[in-house]
C-alpha cells in the first residue's frame, strides 16, 4: 500500500519523456532515474518510510531550478524539494510521478557581513558551516539542531528547526531576516529584508515550517549573534522525574532563561553513559543539563542562583563543568543520545510533541504507563526548558507487527500532547508521518484555511503534495478525532 492516502491526477509525461525534457536543462549526471542511483533518495531521516523516487534532479544554478519548475508547472508534474535529507517526519519522502528536486549543490556562503551581522546563504549550506565561517568575526548562528553537521539551512527554514539553544535564542524563524523563493511557476520573490522587518504581511514567518509546500527556497539571509564571552553547564541528578520537572519550572519562575535546559531519563542516561562516558550518574531517575551564557560576571551570578535552586528542588548530585573540555563532555552525552539509544534496539521511533511545562511530570508518567501497555521501552531525551518532548520508542522492525505497535504508541503520545494543550510537533514537522494527527489538532475549517493559503502560493497544488496538511477526506477516512481547546476526545486517557 502506498503511504499516501490519495491518488494524484495522472500526468502527461512518461518517465523517459521527463528525463529527455530535463536533459535540455541539466547535464546527464544531474538527472537520476535508474533504481540503483535513486536508492539513496528513497527516504529522509525517518527511514521507516521509503519510496523510490520517480526521477531526481540535482541542479546547481538558479536558472536551472527555474527552468525545471517551469517545465514541471507546464506539465503539472509535482515537485518535492530535498535538502540534506535529515528530516524526521518524511517531509522529503519521494513519491511516484513526482520530481525530487535536490538542492544539495547550492552550498555556497554568498556573503558574510560582520558589520551588519548577517550571512547570505544558498539553501544547501550546512547549518554548522555558518557558525564555522562566522567564528572568525566572533559571531555565530544560534539555532543548533543536533543534526547540524549535516542538515541544510533550506531544510531548517522549511521545518522551522530548533535546537538545544532555542530556549534563549529562538527557532529558525527568529533568526532569519530574508528568504528568496521560487514559486511553482518559476517566479522569484523575496520575503523579509536585510533590515529587521519587511513591508506588508509577514509572509516570511509563513515560509518557516512550510515543509516545501509553498515554494523552493533559493537563498536565506540569517542573523548572526556575538559569541558569548562565557558558557557554563551544570548537571543535576534527581531521584524522580517529577522533581526534575519541578526544578525546570523553578529555574524559569526565578526569572532565569538558560541558554539550554535539557532533561534525560534513566534509560537515556545509561545509554549515553555506555556510549560516550559523559560522566552521568547511571542510578539517577533523571538528569538536567542547564547551560548559562553571557559575560563572565553574569554567568557566575546566575550559576550560584541555579545551584541553589536545584538544591532546593532536591537534586541529589550537582556538577559544574570546571573547564571547556568538561563542558563539552557533559554535552556530548546529550548530543549523542539518539545514536546511543539506537544501540539498545534495532530501531527506534522519535516523537516530537510539545507540552506546557507544568504537564511534564504527568505526561512522562502516562508515557511510562503506555510503555508498559505496549510492551515497548521508551527513552526520554528532550528540550525540557521549552516543553519539547522526544520520547524514543524502541522496537524491532523485523518482528511482525512491532512497527505498527510503535506507530500506535506514538500516536497515543501525540494525542496526550494535544489533550494537555500542547502540539503534535515542536520542531520536526508533520511531513507524512503525523499527517493523521493533524486531523486531531485542527478543525476542518482550520485545515481548509491552511489549504486556501497553500493555493495562494501554489494554485495547482504541485509542491510536495500529500504532506503536512491532510485533506478533509483523509481526516474523514482515518478518523483521528479532533481535540480542541483541551477537550478530550479520548476519555480513557488520564487527565492532568
Amino acid at each position, binding site marked *: 500500500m502506498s503511504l499516501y492516502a490519495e491518488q494524484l491526477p495522472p500526468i502527461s509525461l512518461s518517465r523517459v519523456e521527463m528525463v529527455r525534457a530535463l536533459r535540455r536543462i541539466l547535464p546527464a549526471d544531474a538527472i537520476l532515474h535508474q533504481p540503483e542511483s535513486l536508492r539513496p533518495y528513497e527516504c529522509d531521516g525517518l527511514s521507516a518510510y521509503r519510496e523510490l523516487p520517480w526521477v531526481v534532479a540535482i541542479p546547481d544554478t538558479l536558472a536551472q531550478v527555474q527552468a525545471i519548475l517551469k517545465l514541471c508547472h507546464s506539465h503539472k508534474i509535482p515537485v518535492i524539494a530535498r535538502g540534506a535529507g535529515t528530516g524526521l517526519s518524511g517531509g522529503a519522502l519521494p513519491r511516484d510521478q513526482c520530481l525530487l528536486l535536490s538542492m544539495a549543490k547550492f552550498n555556497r556562503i554568498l556573503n558574510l*557581513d560582520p558589520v*551588519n*551581522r*548577517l550571512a547570505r546563504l544558498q539553501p544547501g549550506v550546512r547549518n554548522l558551516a555558518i557558525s564555522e565561517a562566522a567564528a572568525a568575526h*566572533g559571531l555565530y548562528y544560534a539555532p543548533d539542531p543536533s543534526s547540524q553537521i549535516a542538515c541544510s539551512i533550506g531544510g531548517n527554514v522549511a*521545518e*522551522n528547526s530548533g535546537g538545544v539553544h*532555542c530556549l534563549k535564542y*529562538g*527557532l529558525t524563524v*527568529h533568526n532569519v531576516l530574508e528568504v528568496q523563493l521560487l514559486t511553482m511557476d518559476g517566479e522569484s*520573490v*523575496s520575503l523579509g*529584508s*536585510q*533590515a*529587521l*522587518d*519587511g513591508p*506588508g*504581511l509577514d*509572509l516570511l*514567518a*509563513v515560509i518557516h*515550517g512550510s515543509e516545501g509546500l509553498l515554494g523552493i527556497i533559493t537563498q536565506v539571509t540569517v542573523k548572526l549573534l556575538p559569541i558569548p564571552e562565557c558558557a557554563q553547564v551544570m548537571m543535576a541528578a534527581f531521584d524522580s522525574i517529577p522533581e526534575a520537572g519541578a526544578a525546570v*519550572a523553578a529555574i*524559569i*519562575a526565578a*526569572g*532565569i532563561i538558560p541558554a539550554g535546559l535539557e532533561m534525560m531519563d534513566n534509560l537515556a542516561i545509561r545509554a549515553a553513559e555506555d556510549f560516550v562516558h559523559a560522566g552521568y550518574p547511571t542510578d539517577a531517575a533523571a538528569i538536567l543539563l542547564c547551560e548559562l551564557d*553571557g*559575560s563572565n*560576571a*553574569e554567568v*557566575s*551570578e546566575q550559576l550560584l542562583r541555579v545551584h541553589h535552586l536545584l538544591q532546593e528542588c532536591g537534586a541529589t548530585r550537582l556538577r559544574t563543568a570546571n573547564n571547556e573540555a568538561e563542558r563539552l563532555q557533559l554535552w556530548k552525552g546529550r548530543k549523542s543520545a539518539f545514536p546511543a539509544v539506537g544501540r539498545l534496539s534495532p530501531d527506534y521511533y522519535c516523537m516530537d510533541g*510539545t507540552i*506546557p*511545562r*507544568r504537564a511534564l511530570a504527568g505526561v512522562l508518567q502516562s508515557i511510562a504507563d503506555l510503555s508498559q501497555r505496549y510492551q515497548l521501552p521508551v527513552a526520554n531525551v528532550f528540550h525540557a526548558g521549552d*516543553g*519539547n518532548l522526544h520520547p524514543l520508542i524502541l522496537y524491532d522492525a523485523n518482528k511482525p507487527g512491532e512497527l505498527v505497535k510503535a506507530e500506535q504508541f506514538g500516536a497515543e503520545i501525540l494525542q496526550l500532547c494535544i489533550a494537555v*494543550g*500542547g*502540539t503534535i*510537533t515542536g*520542531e520536526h514537522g*508533520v511531513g507524512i508521518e503525523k499527517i493523521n494527527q493533524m486531523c486531531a*489538532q*485542527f*478543525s476542518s*475549517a*482550520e485545515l481548509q*484555511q*491552511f489549504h486556501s*493559503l497553500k*493555493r*495562494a502560493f501554489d494554485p495547482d497544488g504541485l509542491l510536495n503534495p500529500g504532506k503536512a*496538511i491532510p485533506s478533509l477526506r483523509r481526516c474523514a477516512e482515518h478518523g483521528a478525532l479532533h481535540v*480542541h481547546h483541551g477537550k478530550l476526545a479520548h476519555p480513557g486517557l488520564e487527565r492532568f
Partner: protein
Amino acid sequence: MNQTDHSRDWQQQIQEHHAKKSPLMIIGGNSKAFYGRRADATQVLQTRAHCGVIEYEPAELVITARAGTPLREIETTLAQHQQMLGFEPPHFGEHATLGGCIAAGLSGPRRPYSGSLRDHVLGVTVINGRAEQLHFGGKVMKNVAGYDLARLYAGSLGTLGVILDVSLKVLPLPETELTLRFEMHVEQALAKMQQIAPQPLPLSAACYDGAELSLRLSGTPQGVQHARSLLGGESVPKADHFWRQVREQTHPFFQHPQPLWRIAVPPATSMITLGDAQWIDWGGAQRWMYSETSSEAIFSLAQQHGGHASLFRGGEQPRDVFQPLHGKLKELHVNTKLAFDPLCLFNPGRMYSYY
C-alpha cells in the same frame, strides 16, 4: 479584572456582513488610527468589550488574553510577577488594546535585542472573512504543526480577520537596568553602535537623538556593572522615563508637524540624508525622519539601502503609506488576503490601496 467574551456576537455580526458583502472597520482603542491608510468602510466592529486575561501562568512564560484587553492591564499584570512583553510595544494612547497592538505589529526600543512582536506571538484565535472561528499556534514555545498563521496576524492591520485572543511569550523583567549616555556626532554615533553590537554585552536599547547616544544595559547587577566599566559614558537618572518617551514618541523630537517617516535598514547603513532632523533607534536599524520629499523618492531611497520605508504619521495620504509591493510579492499578498477574507470585508485599503 473585566472578563467578557463576545466572540459569538462578532461571529454573527460578521456572518451578516458576509451576507451583505459590506465591509467593516475593526477598531480597538483607536490609539493607532494614524497608522497605515484609512480603511474604506463605514461600519465599525469595536473590540474593547471583548476583554480579559484568559490564562496566565508565570512559570510557563505565556499569557493569553482577549483582544480588547487594555495593553496597560496586560503590562501591569505581568509586572506583578516580574515579567514583561519583551518587544516593549508602543501604546500610543491610554486606551491601546492588545488586539490593536498585535494587528499594528509595532515593537519598541528593545526589539533588536529581545525580538519583535511577531517573534513573541505563539497563538491566535481569529474570525476570518467566512465568519469561521479558527485557532492557530498554541500556548507552547515550539509548534510547527500546520503553517504558522498566528505570526501572520502580527502586523496584518486587521486585514485578515478579527483577532479574538492571543497567546504571547513573555520574558522575565531584567534584574537591573542602566542607561549610559555619550555626546557625539551622528557619524561617531553610528560607528559606535556598530563597534559595540558584535561584543557580548547585555545591551537592550541603543538610540541617537541627534546629539547624544543612549545605551541601555539590562541584566544581572554584576553583568551590567561590568559592561558599564567597559563602555564608560554618563549614567542617566530616570532613564525609564526617557525610554518611555522614545517608545511612545512623546519625546520632543516626535512633536513636529511635518510627515514622519520610518526607514528600516541594515543597522550599519551609513547616514541617510533626508530633511534636517533624524532619530536613530534599534542600534542603527530604524531611522525616523521628517520630510516633505515625495513618497516615491523616499521609497526608492530606502530600497537603495536594502530596507523599506513607511509614512508613519502626518502628511497627505499618498497612494502608498508602506513600501510599494511589486510583481510576485504583490500577487502573493493579494492571494493571501483573499485566502482569509475572500470578500474583502476587513479593513479594506488599510494596508495597501488594492485590498
